[in-house]
């Protein structure tokens, strides 16, 4: 089973929930950080990274000498990543999505496969649990291709060992967030009961509902703000799997890089019951 921990926006406690769930998960499990723009899970789970590999994306390399300026590549490209300007074939590497269309269409072999580094895939172990993360190169705009790479590696790990996986997803509700949760079996939506939190929570609900995945909610910092999240969940029949009380000890523990489930026995029990609730809801689905 793959569980994705997502949130409409950042700062709601996604990494708190992911790291704590990994800590209390009592079956073989892998921890994965797919928030490749701002990976933070490693700060809490402190894995020993034993393998770092560069992840490239295929982009076209132009050979101007072979180009007859037929413009077929430029006409095909939706991302304006390739153009013919005054008899020169130009590739704007940063704009390329790596669809391979220009390579396939060029009649003169003037375009050959090249590479652009997206970032790194880092692998290791947190205790006895496999740990995977992606880290986007500074200045690189496209995170989904790097995420796809991390997910492919995760599929291998799951295939080899049959373990569960808990994924820390990117914040927001646009392409990276959807790319992250699309292949999971259960989505845990973390939110906080404030007007900002509620607004973003509704967007996340709208974004993820069409995926048809079972979904449950964790209300973090319960006790601040108002009850709109809880009311909305009741109205839509969305199960609230856990409420993590607003507590300065949680915030301080988090600030020091502590796994919140390990801060106190009470908090540990909150996450154990969250674990059981996820299993129950996923089994019903």
């Amino acid at each position, binding site marked *: 089973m793959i569980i994705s921990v997502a949130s409409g926006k950042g700062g709601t406690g996604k990494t708190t929930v992911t790291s704590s769930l990994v800590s209390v998960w009592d079956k073989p499990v892998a921890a994965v950080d797919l928030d490749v723009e*701002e990976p933070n899970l490693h700060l809490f789970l402190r894995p020993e990274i034993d393998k770092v590999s560069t992840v490239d994306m295929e982009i076209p390399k132009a050979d101007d000498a072979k180009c007859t300026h037929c413009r077929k590549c430029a006409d095909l490209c*939706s991302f304006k990543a390739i153009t013919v300007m005054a008899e020169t074939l130009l590739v704007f590497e940063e704009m390329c999505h790596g*669809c391979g269309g220009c390579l396939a269409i060029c009649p003169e072999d003037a375009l050959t496969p090249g590479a652009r580094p997206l970032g790194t895939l880092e692998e290791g172990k947190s205790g006895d649990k496999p740990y995977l993360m992606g880290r986007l190169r*500074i200045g690189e705009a496209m995170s989904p291709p790097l995420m796809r790479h991390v997910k492919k590696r995760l599929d291998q790990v799951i295939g080899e060992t049959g373990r569960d996986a808990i994924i820390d997803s990117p914040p927001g509700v646009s392409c990276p967030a959807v790319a992250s949760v699309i292949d999971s079996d259960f989505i845990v939506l973390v939110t906080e009961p404030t007007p900002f939190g509620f607004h973003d929570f509704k967007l996340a609900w709208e974004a993820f509902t*069409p995926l048809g995945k079972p979904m449950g909610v964790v209300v973090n910092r319960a006790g601040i703000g108002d009850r709109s999240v809880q009311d909305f969940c009741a109205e839509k029949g969305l199960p609230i799997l856990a409420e993590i009380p607003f507590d300065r000890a949680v915030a301080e523990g988090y600030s020091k890089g502590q796994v919140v489930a390990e801060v106190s026995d009470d908090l540990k029990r909150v996450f154990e019951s969250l674990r059981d609730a996820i299993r129950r809801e996923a089994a019903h689905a």
Partner: protein
Amino acid sequence: MREILVISGKGGTGKTSLTGAFAHLATDKVLCDLDVDAPDLHILLSPEDHKKEDFVSGNEAVIDPDLCTGCGTCAEMCRFDAVRETGDGLYEVDPLRCEGCNVCVTFCPAQAVKFPAKHCGTWGIGETRFGPMVHARLFPGEENSGRLVSLLKQHAREVAKEKGLGTVLCDGAPGIGCPVISSLSGTDLAVIVTEPTLSGQHDLERVADLCEHFRIRPTVLVNKFDLNPEQTERIEAYCSERNYEVVAKLPHDSIVVEAMVERKVVTEMPDSPFTDTLRSAWARIEELSEQCASASK
């Protein structure tokens, strides 16, 4: 004209609450919410829109089942795993995975793939109690947020020009990817809001690197500094090493959430040490942005 961008590298640091307060404190400005993915500034500023438009960007592949011969070329060539068999020997495109690259459209031998333009969201210009505001909403799950960010900035600049306003104040997107890179373009000063946590420092360093990459001067504001004074010291040490000024340290104060619940900005609440610090922070940000703007001219 100068452009100030509030960013944080990650969400939840208080970026939008602080931008809202700066919107109150700044004179002569147009406001712009560039967090098109999960915009929140409108919750505090309640803009009344006098202009609202669709955001259409990119295209989406759709296979016409009447023309599809089931040859599978589209599925074979799609690098995004967006094309799948329907079970009756035909193929269809999963809109959530389609990047709109045009490959299946171009190579389908039966010309069965249509490529309509995509309606990805809406954007508008409104009036708030603190001045004009340009903002948008990307439909959940959509991409091209970088393009929408550029469009918003362009309109914010036009509004500033038309109305003779000296400052464009932007609430940026979280992260360091596509929308943030777009947000940074043309910015004079980036105000990075951070918090004293391990992840806060990690994200601060990454977003500061991104600013340097694009040669934009960052300045730093530490929010909730008293949650972990030691970590705050480490952030200050990092900033002084990199020559970034820390414009303010704000305590963890429930006034921020209280204001939010009332749909107010923090500086509209009764005066407190928190709001005093915020006022002096804004004064300093104005000075710094002035310096950066004149240096770039």
